[in-house]
């Protein structure tokens, strides 16, 4: 796991492992460049680091056998969902075997009366919700992308409604994990609580595949609310929008989603998603879940708060298709930003601060953006203090790239200085390795010790999550 001591394994050893896997898995083991290329990056910056082979196992036992083989040969193992991660999590920095879990895509059980379910790692979030149709239940976590549940657990994903339902940390009840030596262990389970033993479930959640490969996940489910209403409110300035959020969180309104789009982001979304009747102003998207009366009550309280900060009339979307259009526009924010300047590349930040520092953090960052001369949008799940910048730069322009990197670093450092984090939901991968030490200091040594304890040969997704 130490980047200085880890080198690409001996090519002969790798060749033997690849040959063995190709022999065992036939068409389910692929070595073509196109497929390896596809598995070398997520949605963030493309870093050319190709695995030597991509293999598609179908059971826990197959995953365990693959990891055991890699363990014996000391060849890296990289787990892969659908490749929607943003921080270079799946780049095969030292080559090795990419385990693509997309064929492990069965929902294993749905326990409606206990509000839980068990799925294989390759099930996507949209697939799960489609299979839950008719049960009156849903799985709320929504990072935007149609990620796999395994990937979401590994990166401790959250999303637009974490403010009400929590992140993967709160919603994973248990796991089946293939450990670094190729053993299958089960953590947590269906009991609502247990205080026996260390909390390995949460240790594997967010470990980004560096401690083991998650193959099954036990998840909490929620009753589909009786009533759902979405509203849009626009503000004369960014401070008004952010302060509305802060006041709302303090009041304890159980708002299901609360999303901030700054003026530039709103402009981009209006153009890209053809939203009508809105202006390019700082904007909040709200969603309320509850009984009919509860939703009415929540939104009335929210309006009263919003009025104090100069918010416009609420524009309601109560019909399902209107809501869908609104949230689609929100989820397309990244692409809308890219469309502002065709031909540019984007880099995304992921700061998260305590709510009391949110206004300072966003307003200071907005001032930095204006000084940078770059085109940058702000969008975020501000209810939990998390916001993103999407920073555009010309790929060929080294000066722009440098300014983009400096801006991204500044917002991360600002968040850390304010007691927050450089990553609210995207994870560390390898792009943010240096920031982890900034954020955690001494605790990084412990993380290293844990990595060594559970993966002594450093074969699990080497070069990620914990700096050497």
């Amino acid at each position: 796991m130490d980047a200085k001591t880890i080198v690409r394994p001996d090519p002969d050893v790798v060749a033997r492992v690849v040959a063995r896997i190709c022999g065992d898995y036939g068409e389910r083991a692929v070595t073509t460049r196109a497929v390896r290329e596809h598995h070398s990056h997520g949605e963030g910056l493309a870093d050319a680091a190709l695995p030597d082979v991509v293999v598609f196992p179908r059971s826990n036992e197959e995953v365990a056998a693959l990891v055991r083989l890699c363990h014996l040969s000391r060849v890296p193992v990289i787990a892969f969902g659908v490749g929607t991660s943003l921080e270079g999590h799946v780049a095969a920095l030292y080559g090795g075997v990419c385990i693509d879990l997309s064929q492990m895509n069965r929902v294993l059980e749905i326990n409606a009366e206990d509000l839980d379910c068990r799925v294989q790692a390759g099930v996507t979030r949209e697939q799960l919700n489609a299979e839950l149709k008719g049960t009156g239940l849903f799985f709320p976590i929504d990072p935007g992308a149609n990620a796999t549940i395994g990937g979401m657990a590994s990166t401790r994903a959250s999303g637009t409604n974490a403010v009400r339902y929590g992140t993967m940390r709160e919603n994973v009840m248990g796991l089946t994990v293939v450990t670094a030596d190729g053993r299958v262990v089960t953590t947590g389970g269906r009991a609502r609580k247990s205080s026996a033993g260390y909390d390995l479930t949460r240790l594997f959640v967010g470990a980004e595949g560096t401690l083991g490969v998650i193959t099954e996940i036990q998840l909490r489910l929620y009753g589909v609310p009786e009533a759902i209403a979405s509203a849009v409110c626009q503000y004369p300035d960014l401070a008004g929008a952010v302060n509305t959020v802060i006041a709302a969180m303090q009041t304890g309104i159980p708002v299901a989603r609360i999303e901030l789009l700054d003026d530039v982001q709103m402009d981009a979304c209006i153009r890209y998603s053809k939203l009508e009747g809105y202006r390019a102003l700082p904007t909040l998207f709200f969603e309320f879940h509850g009984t009919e009366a509860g939703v009415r009550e929540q939104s009335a309280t929210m309006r009263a708060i919003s009025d104090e900060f100069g918010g416009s009339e609420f524009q309601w979307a109560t019909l399902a298709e209107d809501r869908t259009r609104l949230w689609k526009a929100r989820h397309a924010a990244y692409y809308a930003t890219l469309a502002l300047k065709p031909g540019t590349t984007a880099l995304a930040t992921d700061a998260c601060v305590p709510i009391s520092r949110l206004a300072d953090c966003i307003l200071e960052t907005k001032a930095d953006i204006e000084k940078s001369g770059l085109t940058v949008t702000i969008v975020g799940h501000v209810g939990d203090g998390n916001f993103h910048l999407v920073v555009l730069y010309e790929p060929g322009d080294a000066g722009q790239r440098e300014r983009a990197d400096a801006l991204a670093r500044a917002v991360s450092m600002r968040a850390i200085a304010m007691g927050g984090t450089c990553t609210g939901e995207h994870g560390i991968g390898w792009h943010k390795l240096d920031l982890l030490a900034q954020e955690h200091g001494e605790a990084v040594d412990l993380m290293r010790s844990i990595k060594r304890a559970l993966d002594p040969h450093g074969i699990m997704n080497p070069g990620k999550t914990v700096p050497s």
Partner: protein
Amino acid sequence: MLDPALLSALADLLPPSAIIATAEGTRPYECDGLPLFREQPLAVLLPEDEAQVVGILRLCHAARLPVVARGAGTGLSGGATPYRKGIVLSLAKFKRILSIDPLSCTAVVQPGVRNLAISEAAAVHRLYYAPDPSSQIACTIGGNVAENSGGVHCLKYGLTVHNVRRVRAVLIDGDVVEFGGEGLDAAGYDLLALINGSEGLLAVITEVTVKLTPNPQQATCVLASFSDAEKAGDAVAAIIGAGIIPAGLEMMDQLTIAAVEPFVHAGYPLDAAAILLCESDGTPDEVTDEVALMRSLLETSGATTIQVSQSEVQRLKFWSGRKAAFPAAGRISPDYYCIDGTIPRRSLAPVLKRIEALSREFGLRCMNVFHAGDGNLHPLILFDANVPDEIARTEAFGARILELCIEVGGTITGEHGVGLEKIDQMCTQFAAAELERFHAIKRAFDAEGLLNPGKAVPLLHRCAEMGRMHVHGGELPYPDLPRF
């Protein structure tokens, strides 16, 4: 006796009043809330700041002297039972609430602050700390983190691990580390979750940032009685199955009702076989809707009477009986032993029947009071330690209840931790591969095993000697059990 050189080094570090090394002096620390286990430590140390904790741990590390951290000593599994050849490190003097941030809804507190004191201090901001173990007037937040404590409100608001943002702690070698952060999420491995429930085996906690929850605008409690416990169990399933997560969902059986009602006059019907307390909180209209729905579900499940609290005074009255269950047990029996196990909710009714049968078999009364919404049982076995063999029968009865929990797919502890009490049952619940992972983590924090030795995670040879790790044909015992 403490080594004289060590004692003098400690005397350089701490005032004389902070070092208790006499047998009379250490006696009050010989046990925690599980008095079945007692042990005299070599010394009890009472540091008052983090630098002293660092100094103590450095000395103990160098001397290879075991350290047992202690909060209020209200734990129920022997987590703070002293180690005979070690010291007790009491955090009792860490009693300050350092800051409350009403905007972020957080408070920074020292580990010796009592659970309830946090809510009392936050009340001016209309905030409170949600996890509420029954011992909340006495237990400390440091102990809550160490045990990942629960409580009545945990069904809706989560356990300690869900309500703690940041923990500052000292490792055995004296290094100070911070886990988590002030924001909602932190980068890297979730060490904060590892510390929660680690029972003092990984680090000594010196500061905690807790999440505070806004007071609900409205809270209403529904008290439903049933002519048999099975129907009450069905009602629990019906409420959860309808997608309702009540703020509290508690069940008490007839013996418990009979014990608490004369004591606190909560208004419980004495003729009921079981009662349920279901709480709804939120905005007024939401609560009205939810209470109406719970009412109809309770009626359909066969509730004989239903009372809805009409005022805050009445609501607190309803809860007073539940919170007083333990002291009430003390009133009707010289001794009692509280069991903590979790079962899938659907097994509530059959498990209650089996416990009733066991109660007859062992000739000991058993009060059943528990967090029904979580399936977390707390049978209280009533006994008299002065009657020959009653302690032995009580322990055997308790062990049978825990085995029953495992048999129906549950776990051996819901919220009280493993400590000394359940170390042997850990061998039943976990297989070698899983215990090995626990030991690997322990080694990463405390290679010499000096922090709280002999607790929480059994050594593999202990399990082997007990013959509990019988693996047949490569199959785990109870393969569908939650393991971690």
